[in-house]
């Protein structure tokens, strides 16, 4: 696996990945749906698959003394590594924002554990849709990315929309909707209280589990599908 990961990093990693990772700086934009930065990383992942296809990577890898399953797992490992790097960079940005600014965000989820949790779920959705869809053929990267992007944007709209709506509803005294009030007070906020910390920590833990399970399922599906593909 080391040799395969080395191949992924030195022959397959698309240079734009670093530019897209740098877009994590978008987390410093005031009032912005920060999950959009995660979508840009998905875009970079798509470029890796697309450029690898153009470079005949599947055939070259199949000629090497590795199984198809190992080849798929190495590529998925590269995807996971990039997503973890993105998450760590986002955590750094959140910490900086909480210290230098106040972490609040009227355009979507505030800087905090909730944002990282939503990012993890976004990556899980992308992995579950994009990876098995690509490995069904081993070359249709564009169609797979389109499906993955639809899933990702639905999640961005749902999660960021829920955060914005929660604050709007919580400020309206005439509406008594406990779920939205809870979200506004404990999820989409700086975790100043123990209750908020607990709520966000549970959310982050659940998201971590969703990411781990979702990614494992996507890898298994991808391996199974790619085994059936004739590498041309």
């Amino acid at each position, binding site marked *: 696996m080391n040799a395969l990961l080395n191949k992924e990093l*030195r*022959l397959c990693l698309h240079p734009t990945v670093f530019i897209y990772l740098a877009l994590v700086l978008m987390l410093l934009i005031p009032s912005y749906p920060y999950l959009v930065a995660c979508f840009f990383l998905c875009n970079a992942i798509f470029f890796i698959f697309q450029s690898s296809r153009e470079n005949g990577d599947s055939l070259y890898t*199949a000629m090497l*003394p590795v*199984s198809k399953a190992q080849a798929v797992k190495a590529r998925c490992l590269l995807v996971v590594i990039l997503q973890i790097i993105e998450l760590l960079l986002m955590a750094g940005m959140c910490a900086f924002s909480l210290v230098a600014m106040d972490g609040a965000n009227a355009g979507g989820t505030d800087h905090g554990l909730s944002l990282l949790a939503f990012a993890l779920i976004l990556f899980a959705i992308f992995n579950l849709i994009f990876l098995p869809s690509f490995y069904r053929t081993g070359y249709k990267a564009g169609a797979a990315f389109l499906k993955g992007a639809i899933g990702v944007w639905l999640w961005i709209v749902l999660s960021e929309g829920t955060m914005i709506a929660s604050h709007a509803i919580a400020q309206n005294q005439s509406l008594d909707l406990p779920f939205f009030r809870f979200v506004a007070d404990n999820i989409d906020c700086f975790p100043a209280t123990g209750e908020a910390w607990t709520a966000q920590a549970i959310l982050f833990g659940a998201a971590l589990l969703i990411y781990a399970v979702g990614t494992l399922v996507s890898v298994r599906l991808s391996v199974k599908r790619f085994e059936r593909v004739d*590498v041309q």
Partner: protein
Amino acid sequence: MILEVRNLKKRYPTFLLDDVSFDVEEGCIMGFIGRNGAGKTTTIKAILNLIHADGGQVRFDGRDLWANETACKKKIGLVLGEFSYYRRKKLKTIADVTKRFYADWDEELYQSLLTRFALDPEKKVNELSQGMRVKLALALALSHHAKLLILDEPTSGLDPVSRDELLELFRAIIEDGEHSILFSTHIISDLEKCADYITYIKNGSVLCSTDADSFKDAYRLVSGEADRLDRFRDRLIGYRAHAFGFTGLMRAENADAAEGLKVAPADMESIMIYTEKEDGHERAAE
């Protein structure tokens, strides 16, 4: 036997690889010949499990190749035409990545091949000519002491001098009796110089798999005047009519009994050309 291929089958909507069987012995070069589209590359890809065969069995060095794919591939050097991967990467990067997959990688041998082929490791793949890309693919395939080299069209795009050098190199590789080469090509003259055995594939089926001398001895080139054509037409595998008569290919046993025809030994290229005319020699004669 280093490679045993039995009843290999692959069905496509418009093409059938039908029960392909042949053996490659240790210390030999097997020429795998056939026209473009005859099924040479499909056979090679099916042998190596790059495409899934619909049936058959492949044994490498006594082991089921498909069940022991990773271990077997470590002992196989594969060239599928020119090196057309990672075009914007430097040769040294590609070699550095590739060598990590092979415990038996011989850096000294690789460097000597780079020198022999005049390949500059600082160059990028897209800066190489077609012939130089073939040489790069060969250098990578030859540098891990593979017991079997499977080369699909390795001499296409090479100049005559390079091709001759390469054929000499192939002979040197198998000299120790432990290495073998399966060499697919439609440049038959290359095989005349180096192949010990020939497997001839036509429309997805193996026509024959035998030693090179028996292959050539089984046929004769015959020529005669035009008035003889009708008499021998049925016994000709293929022929070409011209102003002075005709030239064609016959099975040796038929040619030896043919009176009034000039009979000459057949070369591999003629055997292939006239055999491929087999189905349409009437039209070819017009």
